[in-house]
């Protein structure tokens, strides 16, 4: 049986498994197929800058080195904040109670860049938490799937009788005034699939 985080909101507490909502499971997916003149399937590999060494999946490793160029065992590294103080390790949601709070609003939720979505699966009735979400709309919590130093932001919300956890990073946009337009970052997106989006 899947491990279940325990969520706590004031006096209420409940357990639910997290089932990842994948776009492929909702709409299907697409792939690009490449064939040569003999109708053989082709695939992409990495060509090194010597122009002759070809490397396939799994042929490249990522290593950490020190100032002298010697390899470092990653388990010996220490995590620090940028001001050089020791970083705090936050536990996984599966290891401790996850405390929900109602101090963030729909506006906060809408300011979050989303990384992943989970549907909550209950072994018992979800009525009590549904009632809470109908009142509060969104409940905020910090989320670490595994223990880590920089937890994600997350919200519980409901759609009909179903409850979802939406995970991401809150973004602090600033308002633009005539004198001070907001300064923003550029971004490029990887080319992706093309599917019908039958939302309307």
């Amino acid at each position, binding site marked *: 049986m899947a491990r279940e985080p325990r969520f706590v909101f004031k006096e209420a507490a409940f357990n639910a498994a997290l089932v990842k*909502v994948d776009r492929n499971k909702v709409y299907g997916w697409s792939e690009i*197929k490449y064939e040569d003149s003999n109708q053989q399937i082709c695939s992409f590999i990495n060509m090194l800058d010597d122009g002759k060494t070809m490397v396939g999946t799994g042929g490249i*490793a990522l290593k950490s080195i020190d100032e002298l160029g010697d390899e470092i065992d990653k388990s010996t590294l220490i995590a620090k904040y940028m001001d050089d103080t020791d970083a705090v390790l936050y536990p996984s949601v599966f290891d401790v109670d996850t405390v929900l709070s109602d101090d963030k609003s729909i506006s906060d939720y*809408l300011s979050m860049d989303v990384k992943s979505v989970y549907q909550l699966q209950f072994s018992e009735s979800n009525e009590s938490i549904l009632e809470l979400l109908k009142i509060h709309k969104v409940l905020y919590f910090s989320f670490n799937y595994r223990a880590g130093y920089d937890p994600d932001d997350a919200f519980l919300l409901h759609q009909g009788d*179903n409850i979802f956890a939406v995970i991401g990073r809150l973004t602090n946009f600033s*308002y633009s005034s005539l004198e001070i337009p907001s300064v923003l970052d550029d971004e490029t997106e990887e080319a992706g699939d093309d599917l019908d989006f039958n939302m309307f």
Partner: protein
Amino acid sequence: MRKIKIANVQKRDAEIVFGGLFRKPIIQYTLQDGTKTRNIKVLKSDLKRQYDALFNEYGSDESLSKGILEEDPEIDLNNVGKIIGTTQKVLINLDNKPVYKVKITEVIYNVDGSIKDEKPFTTRNQNILSEYPISWTGKQIPIDEAYNKFIFAKKYQLTHNNGLTFDFLFAMAKELHEKKVMMLLAAGAKGNEPLIFQENGRPYRAFLEGRIIDESYLLIMHISNLELKPIL
């Protein structure tokens, strides 16, 4: 910041700028003495020494296992551990030979993995800075209803680049703020196509939200390609 051409409800358009905000890393990893490390990419094995090539050379897993024990064909002592700089993506065929002319097909799968359609691949051009501006479709969704209908994966802020576009965008934000709605945006000549932000990028539906405080505004374009639907 990138540019986008957008029209308002009166179909007046302007070229303005947009972008996101990315949280900078808050954690750094150091050695015990406080010195910093850096990450590098190194070569483990090239294509000739990876499983598929070695299997073809030895003919079976049994003889490959024996070969690995006796001859170490998977290790290239001259190159293993070599630091890798920039690489280029190259298409190869099943014989590990680079190919220069290929037929490209897009295969579309159903949720159950069966093939729904197979068609020649066509290039998708970006449509946020084209002849036709991004337009308001007139489809307004109250924010209280939109927040749990779609997953708004990414947010881009629209902002002005001169005094005229300040007025243009402030008026948009004010209208949406007062109505407490998001406006569905669309691209193309008919104003009904999803937005494509770059060549061969994913198509997204975009929803515009406006907030104002006094004489300042916040216009956020929420983009989505997923409805919030149960999968269980």
